[in-house]
């Protein structure tokens, strides 16, 4: 790991900030932009969460209690779009903005104005998306996967949804360019690539994935738009087109997308576990190669989302085998994290609690993923709650817990205050227990035969749905503890030291004061 040789990087005279609303509207400072992204993501997490609670409320008992089935479909569609594109991705970008320059000893991101545009696109994109609920025909209701012909049956929400997705995509692509240019060009002298903190490595690889696949999504949704309004027949069989082609194009984006949603989480956990185990990450090189392998393999597995579509046998076989293969580098990472803990000296502060919960629960999601890879068995799992359970395990106690771990890890660096440990521990335990109560029974529901994306179900599915809904409400409301904690921490609290975590943490970000000065590393540190 790299250590700064000198404290000359402390720029006490550079701490004056712009003021007023202009500071935020015209922000070019990576710390401010990082804050904007994180706060936006937090807001979207609650909006998407409210949609989830509406869904779980309807599914609490059989029968329709609250919603018209068409509106229910728009709830589940928007829940996914908001969570994926509005909560998880912006949160990771916010963490990248805050931490990459600090971790590589750079004064800011390479392209600060483009950074500003990348952020400010998002509130407009989501205003467009959410306002579509008020159009004739209601919000988009064909699933976040937008399969035609169903997605083409949408009313006036359709162009709003497509434009919103284009905007989010542009934001992501610009952000990714920024990350790559920054990491490749602005590392402090002596920081070779194989000394890069793993959070930076995983973000570097994620950025390449984003640039590769967001344009593919843009192409796919543009074809939907032209099919709907301009008489093309890309996906319309009557005109010689193929609805399945959309699925191929979408999932060519979609599979790397799910790795975009998890690789930064791997990086975060790779920073936190060594810190609180008081032991360096085991197998740094292997971790880098494993991440790169996962990224490469992610391009050749897409059709495992489409096993029931009627592919030729050779196709099914290829995608089954390549999907099973991707379990290998993922497993290697889990083993390396475990080996980091082995013969360590662990303490269990909130970041470590969330990182360990990630390790256990993401692995469970990985197991259900392996089961889903087995194509003949997948015929029984596809489009059931088993799939819903799988991806929620890897995304919620996976990606979201890693984001929370990162916030708990770096918040004292950002704010200069330690937060309320008791509240953090309550947040952790209630979240962890309730997230399992919420999602584990969904495995049973899927295996017992409950399809997904339905507002009502046959009565034998009642018990597990009730349990899941209770878990959902407890989980949802316990996130209020997180907001209270952050609010209190921003406003005050015990002073945090520069090192914050008793000198355990290695990395350039711990060589600047807490809170990090507005401008840091104006002079690059020397790294050995």
């Amino acid at each position, binding site marked *: 790991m790299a250590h700064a040789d000198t404290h000359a990087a402390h720029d006490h005279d550079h701490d004056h900030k712009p003021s007023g609303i202009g500071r935020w509207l015209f922000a070019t400072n990576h710390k401010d932009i990082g804050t904007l992204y994180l706060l936006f993501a937090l807001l979207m997490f609650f909006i998407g969460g409210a949609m989830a609670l509406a869904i779980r409320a309807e599914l609490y008992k059989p029968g*329709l209690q609250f919603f018209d089935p*068409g509106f229910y479909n728009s709830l589940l569609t928007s829940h996914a779009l908001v969570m994926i594109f509005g909560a998880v991705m912006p949160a990771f970008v916010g963490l990248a903005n805050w931490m990459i320059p600090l971790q590589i000893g750079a004064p800011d991101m390479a392209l600060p104005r483009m950074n500003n545009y990348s952020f400010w696109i998002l509130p407009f994109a989501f205003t467009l998306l959410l306002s579509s609920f008020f159009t004739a025909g209601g919000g988009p209701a064909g699933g976040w996967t937008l399969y035609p012909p169903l997605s083409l049956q949408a009313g006036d929400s359709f162009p709003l949804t497509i434009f919103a997705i284009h905007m989010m995509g542009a934001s992501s692509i610009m952000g990714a360019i920024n990350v790559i240019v920054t990491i490749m060009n602005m590392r402090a002298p002596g920081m070779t690539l194989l000394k890069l903190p793993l959070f930076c490595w995983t973000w570097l690889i994620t950025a390449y994935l984003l640039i590769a696949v967001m344009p593919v999504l843009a192409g796919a949704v543009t074809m939907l738009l032209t099919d709907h309004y301009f008489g093309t027949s890309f996906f319309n*069989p009557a005109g010689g087109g193929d609805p399945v082609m959309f699925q191929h194009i979408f999932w060519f984006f979609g599979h790397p997308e799910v790795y975009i949603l998890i690789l930064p989480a791997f990086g975060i956990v790779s920073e936190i576990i060594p810190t609180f185990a008081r032991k360096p990450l085991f197998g740094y090189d292997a971790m880098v190669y494993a991440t790169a392998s996962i990224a490469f393999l992610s391009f050749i597995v897409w059709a495992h989302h489409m096993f*029931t579509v009627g592919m030729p046998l050779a196709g099914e*076989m290829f995608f089954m085998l390549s999907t099973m293969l991707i379990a290998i580098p993922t497993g290697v990472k889990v083993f390396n994290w475990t080996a980091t803990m082995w013969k360590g000296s662990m303490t269990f502060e909130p970041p470590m609690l969330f990182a360990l919960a990630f390790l256990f629960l993401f692995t469970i999601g990985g197991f259900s993923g392996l089961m889903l890879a087995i194509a003949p068995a997948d015929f*029984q799992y*596809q489009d059931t709650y088993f799939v819903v359970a799988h991806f929620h395990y890897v995304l919620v106690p996976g990606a979201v817990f890693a984001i929370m771990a990162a916030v708990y890890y770096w918040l004292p660096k950002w704010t200069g205050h330690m937060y309320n440990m008791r509240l953090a521990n309550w947040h952790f335990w209630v979240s962890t227990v309730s997230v399992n109560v919420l999602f584990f029974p969904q495995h049973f529901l899927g295996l017992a*035969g409950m399809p997904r994306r339905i*507002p009502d179900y046959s009565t034998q599915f009642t018990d597990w749905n009730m349990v899941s809904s209770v878990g959902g409400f407890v989980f949802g409301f316990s996130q209020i503890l997180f907001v209270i904690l952050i609010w209190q921490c921003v406003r005050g609290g015990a002073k945090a030291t520069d090192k914050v975590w008793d000198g355990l943490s290695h990395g350039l970000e711990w060589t600047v004061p807490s809170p990090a000065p507005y401008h840091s590393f104006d002079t690059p540190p020397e790294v050995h």
Partner: protein
Amino acid sequence: MLNRKVLSALGVLLGAAPAVAYDSSYNMPVGVTQIAREVHSLHMIVFWICVAIAVAVFGAMIYSIIAFRKSKGAVADTTMLHSTIVEVIWTTIPVLILVGMAVPAAKTLVRMDDTRNAELSIKITGYQWKWQYEYLGKGISFYSSLGAESNYARQLHSGIDPNTVKDYLLEVDHEVVVPVDTKVRLLLTANDVIHSWWVPDFAVKKDAIPGFINEAWFKSEKIGHYTGQCTELCGRDHGFMPIVVNVVSKEDFARWVADQQAAAKAAAEGAAPTATTATTNAPAASAAAAR
């Protein structure tokens, strides 16, 4: 290499109860076809392998959390940085495990793909929001929609408790009737958007795509009613277009076919619709008696 019989036996041993539709609230049904049994076995084998790996990996994690904690005085071994041998081992062993899973999976996949030598072909068309079934070469064709009682109860604010409705959301007004021990070939398509036809007891799930025809097959070894649902989001009533397959003896099937053809002939000749159209499901009583 596991052959079919060993696979099935393993599956039964590994925790399957002989099942009719939906008897477990936890697990996949074993099903009533050879393929379904193989699929169930694959599922259970992969599941138990995952459990074994989980025991090992979570065991190591839990042990670490207990034994290597600072509060117990553990001192970190900071020289433990990497080991190429260990990386090779814990890459190679998972590869071997995966190969072990892939071989039986591939065999079952190949068998599922073989739609040759079917004795009966049914064309299934997905509509928003019902199914249409056409028995090719027999002149039998009908729509199958959610049963009336379920349909009333499921309306928003219906005031009817779903628990009072028999087979809530899994009943239809016109069941699909097929003979037992007969390879039935399904040709799937759709009229509007993508639907998907799934009957868990047969382990058959195939998308019904407008403008295209997909093939699937099953051969039920047991008489009975087997239910399923649409499994591709298809709009507002995606959750309300179930499937009910009534597997009957070959004699009962022949009688049913004759009845259906007679009714179709009578309808075509402009006669008033007879009571037969209302009871188009094969008689359950004689099916039970035949057993």
